[in-house]
């Protein structure tokens, strides 16, 4: 009986396995990041009191900038990968799938780039 070359072959690092792990690890980090964000911005400070001065004050601290970069990176990538999973349910043509995956990647890069530029560039408080 001819047997497949089964013994040494490893599942290895494939894209889908990495994407699955990413969803789990990023979700774990999102729990403290998102709850911290909601608690501070929506409850302690309140959305109506957030203005440019407040953002300038917040981003004067490097710690908050790192926090916001992490939140942007994990939350958005987590969400876009989720969208990719949903899209794969409905789009079955391999070429269309590739197109959607590239489109989502570009969308993610664009929005993350704009967000990162804002966070790194920071803001100056308005003159009184």
């Amino acid at each position: 009986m001819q047997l497949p070359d089964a013994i040494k072959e490893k599942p290895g690092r494939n894209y889908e396995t990495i994407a699955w792990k990413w969803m789990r690890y990023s979700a774990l980090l999102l729990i403290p990041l998102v709850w911290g964000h909601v608690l501070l911005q929506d409850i302690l400070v309140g959305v109506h009191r957030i203005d440019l001065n407040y953002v300038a004050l917040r981003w004067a601290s490097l710690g908050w900038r790192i926090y916001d970069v992490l939140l942007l990176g994990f939350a958005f990538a987590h969400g876009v990968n989720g969208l990719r999973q949903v899209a794969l349910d409905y789009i079955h043509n391999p070429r269309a799938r590739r197109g959607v995956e590239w489109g989502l990647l570009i969308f993610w890069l664009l929005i993350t780039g704009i967000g990162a530029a804002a966070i790194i560039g920071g803001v100056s408080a308005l003159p009184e």
Partner: protein
Amino acid sequence: MRLTLKIFRYDPNTSAGPHYDRFQVEADPNDRVLDLLEAVRGDQDDTLSFRRSCAHGVCGSDAMRINGLNALACKVLVKDLNSDTIQIEPLLGLRVEKDLIVDMEPFFAHYRSILPYLINDEPLPEDGKERLQSEAERERFDDTTKCILCAACTTSCPSFWADGQTIGPAAIVNAHRFIFDSRDRGRLKRLKILAGQAGVWRCRTAFNCTEACPRDIHITRAIAEVKQEILKHS
């Protein structure tokens, strides 16, 4: 007791499209749904088509949707349905050939894709007889040996409904049966197949498969164990 059977009908050779027919039947509470289908075919409409073989929950040929849930018609008792009308439909996600008969080929293609046979090219034991294993080694995959390939699980899986390329729970269960068999040497090859885009990562742990399984296999657990095994080797 008098019951109404609302049965999905489709015959590609007639112009009538898919529709439901209603049949009145006299039933005993201990009758099985398969008995009612046989009564309809025998006494009322001999064009009604459905699969059946052993009629005792072993062969797995009469899986269908009964009041919306996948089950074997030979294992569901009328009294357990608590309903005067029983709706019987073919399995979802597979092409209907006629009435309650679906094309099982895509299901079996997924099954074949995971190499559902023992792979071991090592020399035979000295006595030339059996490759022995301990009770514990056998116990490791005992649950997944119970699969009868009825397709109740795969056709209850939302990921399979959405995309027929999804390998589905039955194929993963049968891969599990060999992946955790101490005598088998094809584990990594199977894990590689299951780590692909149509494989285990399509499972969203909806648990539909576990509820649908007429053999009470812990399918979602088996899928989780295969996922862990892939993570261990990646």
